[in-house]
């Protein structure tokens, strides 16, 4: 067993242990040979959330077998996959990073084809699960999640939440990974201006996803889609959303107040009519929405100095640039 210096690692395999882990020794046995096939120096990094003690013991065993190539990271508190992954991204030494779930899901045999996708220009390759061994109940849920996400964000991914992915290291620096946003990784990568490719991979026969989750989990998913949809459409121009909402409410409220006023002039007393309260409330909510939108615009405008929303792929120019480089005259 030889010690591996940092530079010699080409591929990092990140395995976040954050929910329902299967026997990690089995997972390890299934994944290891597939990565070995690629013929590149590699490392495995197990990212263990605080609550999984058995899994931790199992990966420690694996670490003892090959200390240089199996690394273990234990979190001091329970973490989400997004948090585990960003810690993993920070420590990964390879130029290519695989993420593999700690349970049987997309077959590890698909890893080489993910790698091939990166070699042919993709920045992120995601395994979309086919031949699913999950129950029909689970599959309907996955499909619903994908549909809703597509609709909410204006993108098309057939299996966005699949945990088996391969990505180039340069991509991860640009991702806002927090909360449960790992589920939308392909979307975030796409938004950051990188190329995403889907690769069909058979689901492993040993995959055993639970059919039904807690009610809270479903609620969280829905809210996640809402926030990601907000990020997709309106982060750059909050007033377009809040202005529309505000105009709708405020308009409705004004209309009610106008009708009450006209009726008052025609002789019907306004005092004592509860619809007056509704009108005033709607106008108030409308104004509030517009206010929030304007504050958002203000924040963005001043923040824009530090944000560049474009990403350059390449610059073509003559060997001798036409004009010499120049110092900016103001601090930015």
């Amino acid at each position, binding site marked *: 067993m030889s010690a591996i210096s940092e530079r010699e690692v080409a591929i990092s395999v990140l395995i976040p242990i954050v929910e329902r882990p299967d026997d990690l020794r089995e997972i390890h046995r299934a994944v290891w040979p597939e990565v070995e096939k690629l013929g590149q120096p590699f490392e495995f990094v197990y990212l263990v959330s605080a609550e999984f003690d058995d899994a931790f013991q199992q990966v420690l065993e694996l670490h003892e077998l090959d200390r240089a190539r199996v690394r273990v990271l234990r979190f001091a508190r329970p973490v989400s996959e997004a948090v585990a992954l960003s810690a993993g991204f920070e420590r990964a030494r390879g130029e290519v990073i695989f993420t593999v779930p700690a349970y049987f899901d997309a077959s590890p045999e698909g890893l080489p084809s993910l790698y091939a996708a990166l070699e042919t220009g993709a920045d992120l390759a995601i395994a979309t699960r086919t031949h699913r061994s999950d129950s029909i109940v689970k599959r309907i849920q996955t499909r619903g999640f994908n549909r809703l996400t597509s609709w909410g964000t204006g993108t098309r991914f057939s299996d966005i939440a699949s945990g088996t992915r391969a990505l180039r290291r340069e991509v991860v620096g640009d991702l806002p990974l927090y909360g449960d946003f790992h589920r939308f990784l392909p979307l975030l990568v796409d938004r950051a201006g990188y190329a995403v490719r889907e690769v069909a991979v058979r689901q492993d026969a040993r995959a055993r996803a639970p059919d039904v989750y807690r009610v809270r989990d479903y609620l969280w998913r829905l809210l996640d889609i809402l926030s990601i949809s907000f990020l997709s459409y309106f982060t750059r121009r909050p007033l377009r959303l809040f202005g529309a909402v505000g105009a709708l409410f405020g308009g409705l409220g004004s209309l009610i107040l106008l009708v009450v006023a006209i009726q008052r002039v025609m002789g019907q007393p306004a005092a004592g009519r509860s619809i007056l309260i509704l009108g005033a409330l709607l106008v108030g909510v409308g*104004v509030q929405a517009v206010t929030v939108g304007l504050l958002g615009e203000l924040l963005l405008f001043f923040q824009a100095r530090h944000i560049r929303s*474009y990403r350059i792929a390449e610059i073509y120019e003559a060997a001798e640039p036409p004009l010499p480089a120049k110092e900016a005259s103001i601090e930015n």
Partner: protein
Amino acid sequence: MSLVEPIGNSLSVVVPVFNEAANAAPLVTRIVEAVRPLDIPFELIVIDDGSSDGTPDVLRELIEANPELVVIRLRRNFGQASALQAGFDRARGDIIVTLDGDLQNDPRDIPRLLERLRAGADVVSGWRLNRQDAVVVRKIPSWLANRLIRWVTRVPIHDQGCSLKAYRREVIERLDLYSDLHRFITILTMPQGAAIEEIEVRHHPRVAGESKYGLSRVLKVLVDLTAIQMLTRFRESPTRWFGLLGAPFLLGSLVTGAASLVLAGSLVVLPTVSILLGLVFMSCLFAALLGEAIIDTLGSTESNRVVAREWKEER
């Protein structure tokens, strides 16, 4: 003595393109032909905004014959504002000229724009008096939008949508474009105190490729205008902006409050409405406070952004 600071000589022409493979070669040739005779150092920066029709390859071929050409290929389509910003970030000239990649602007107008800059303008905007576009979907909405923008912002420009514009470098360095802000670029230069001028420019009908604008943008322009108005006229005093917004509600609250006192015994509704309107006013005040906090933390370098010129002897 004069307030005119002499302007440097070098020129950057910045052109964002999107799927303009058919127009790319004539575009580059025409710009180069129009600028070369001026005998000033210049670069032509073409930003490919994620074209899928091979535009970047066409452009790349042109570099050999036109060493002034710099092609920036973006990873995907980011929109015109971001593409322009990519060009601005790279631009090295003392003067920056922008124009559209569809050949509807005429590069032969560039020398006239430069003249006005040398005469002291900070921004020179083109005005397409003889506009060659569809009347109903393009010209009429644009005329209305420009009227409205002129009225609201008081920037006396007749043709905000004309891409052919020239700027002093300092003006561009103080701008950060995102989303669709490129449509309001002259307005955004106003808080800097930039001297904005307008000259008539030629306009040609589109010969190749497809127009990328539609009617739907008019609505967006209206919403954006509200934001721009706040960002330019009230950016240093959000309390005034939100105060103005809240004032009618305070008034309403006071009136209904007084009425409920006068018409004593008349029940619940009037006092409730008074309280509601008062709360709306309060929330405007809260927003004003947040706005002040935002500007205090993020916008504290605001004084750097105003153009200040040194008085110099005229040469």
